[in-house]
């Protein structure tokens, strides 16, 4: 009996210690950040320092990352996040520190800037700054280009299998066609899909007029019988297997689908398209901002950029890299020749009230699809 009690006492002590040890670790890692910033102010050569890169998994080919370390001697500490929201929460908790360079989506960057978590860029430190395609600059999240450098853009295009679809699809409105019953796949984003209906009705993606959003909801209910699936991941597989015959997909999925089946048709909807832009920024208290500049400039080199976009499968935001992207990818990684910038409307942050209206419309639409 006594022995049993001893064992349980020891076990509970171990448990307690484990908890305490966990706390200790967290402290020491935050201290690590401070140390490296101290090194950086003393030593400008940056060699041997670390670049804390914070972005999604799989944003760069490994050879590009290795090439940077080889050339500059700066080690890369690649930290992943899964959602933009997680990134913002972590950056907020770190008070804009801990990370040197972040790549995330446009709308969350607007929020990060308004929360004072982003520092202004000095373009004179970027020798390849002029290579950026101006189409992707001056957008809502950074209208004066003070904070960000774009890294890839995506657009919600329609992709369809001409062997399964009888009509020629030219715009979003065609998805409402009766012949497409139970055979359309769409992405699971309320703003994009509600926005699609808004566009068909000739409205803006970003309207805050509740009655217009509700009208779009009514329009969507007419689309419901055609919807077979609503999801964000691997929609290309469903298109390739014939589960669906047309889809509204993200650029990276379009790339994968086209690589598998070149017969698929990619449509730039005639209603006008909304780009999503991913961009790089330096957090306000980045411990090693100089290394971040070095990395951004390296990525902006056209030959490096071309490698990145071929790997990433998103639209190339570096105009000097366009010509370097190999033939098989160029068709869907660079803008079409007849592209008109004035037709482009991005999805921007809107009022909470309008967002709630979107949410309601979206939930009703999804339930109606069943």
């Amino acid at each position, binding site marked *: 009996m006594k022995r049993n*009690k001893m064992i349980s006492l020891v076990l509970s002590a171990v448990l307690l210690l484990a908890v305490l040890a966990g706390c200790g670790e967290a402290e020491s890692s935050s201290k690590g950040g401070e140390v490296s910033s101290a090194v950086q102010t003393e030593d400008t050569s940056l060699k041997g320092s670390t670049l804390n890169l914070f972005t999604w998994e799989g944003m760069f080919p490994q050879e590009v990352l290795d090439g940077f370390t080889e050339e500059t001697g700066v080690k890369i500490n690649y930290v992943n996040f899964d959602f933009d929201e997680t990134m913002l929460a972590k950056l907020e908790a770190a008070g804009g520190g801990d990370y040197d360079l972040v790549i995330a989506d446009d709308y969350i960057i607007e929020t990060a800037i308004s929360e004072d978590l982003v520092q202004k860029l000095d373009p004179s430190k970027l020798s390849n700054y002029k290579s950026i395609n101006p189409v992707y600059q001056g957008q809502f999240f950074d209208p004066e280009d003070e904070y960000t450098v774009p890294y890839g853009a995506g657009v919600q295009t329609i992709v369809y299998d001409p062997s399964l679809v009888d009509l020629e699809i030219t715009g979003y409105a065609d998805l409402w066609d009766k012949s497409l019953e139970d055979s359309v796949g769409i992405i699971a984003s309320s703003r994009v899909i509600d926005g699609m209906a808004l566009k068909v009705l000739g409205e803006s993606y970003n309207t805050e007029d509740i009655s217009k959003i509700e009208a779009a909801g009514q329009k969507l209910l007419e689309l419901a019988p055609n919807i077979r699936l609503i999801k964000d991941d691997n929609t290309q597989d469903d298109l390739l297997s014939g589960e669906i015959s047309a889809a509204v997909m993200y650029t990276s999925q379009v790339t994968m689908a086209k690589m598998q089946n070149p017969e698929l048709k990619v449509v730039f909807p005639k209603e006008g398209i909304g780009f999503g832009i991913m961009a790089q920024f330096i957090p306000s208290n980045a411990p090693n901002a100089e290394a971040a500049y070095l990395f951004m400039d390296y990525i902006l080199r056209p030959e490096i950029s071309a490698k990145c976009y071929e790997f990433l499968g998103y639209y190339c935001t570096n105009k000097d890299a366009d010509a370097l992207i190999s033939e098989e990818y160029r068709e869907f990684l660079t803008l079409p020749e007849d592209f008109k910038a004035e037709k482009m409307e991005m999805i921007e942050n809107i009022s*909470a009230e309008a967002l709630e209206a979107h949410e309601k419309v979206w*939930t009703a639409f999804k339930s109606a699809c069943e």
Partner: protein
Amino acid sequence: MSGNREKKKRRLRGEALTVLPLYVFTLLFVLGPIVYMIVLSFLTRAETWGVLPEFTLQNYKNIAEPVYLETFWESIKLALTSTVLVILIGYPFGYFMAKLTAKWKKRTMMLLMIPFWTSSLIRLYGWIIIFRAGGILDKLLMALHVTEKSVKILYTYPAVVVGMVYALLPFMIFAVYSSAEKLDFSLVEAARDLGASPMKAFLTVSLKLTLPGLLSGVVLTFVPSMGLFFIADILGGNKVVLVGNLIQEQLMKTHNWPFAAALSVALLALTSLFMFLYRKLSGVKDLEGLV
């Protein structure tokens, strides 16, 4: 005397120390989050990001919107459908499993356990391979000349129900089995000897004695099925909107955390109600055979 009391005191202190981690754990990781969630559900969402510390009842009012109320109904409907199917398949399974010889009991148990060695998510993707256009089911039906075109079952309501039943069936089987195993089959024989028909013997003896197992099986399938939103996601193509899906959407996409918290509180209240009804109905204080 006083020495004895001293000893008792010390023993009590020792016991308190050993259970302390459990209490700390429960307070920190169970009670804490629930309190946090309840507090959050009364706060106001900020314009684009985060939460404002302003009291409101708006989040609960939102739940009463027909669109959102429907997701609760949808969840209950799916939970009921799955539970009924799980009873129809799981009860006879568990009942007859208890009648097997010891060797076959072990083997059957093993076969039931093996799928649990793989992540439930991966097993769900297995169903996609079976259900998708040109998948295993299509090929089988075409080979049997039942159909010539794809049956297109993936991303439909029946696909979700199959996924739910598949995920929850073992819980019912184990609950019924543990109850049926304790059943003395000579009682059934006695009833038959005394002139009861097989049906009557089953209803008055077997069913009555295995009822606690059946009821705990119902709780173990019904309650989790209210929250298994990812099955509706993966096999239903997001078209079946359950409360769980709505909560996830509010948290991850709309950033309306207070509303998500209010929905969670409502879901928690609903499942607590079901647990309460179960206790009233069965008079059992814990989950027979499994706790």
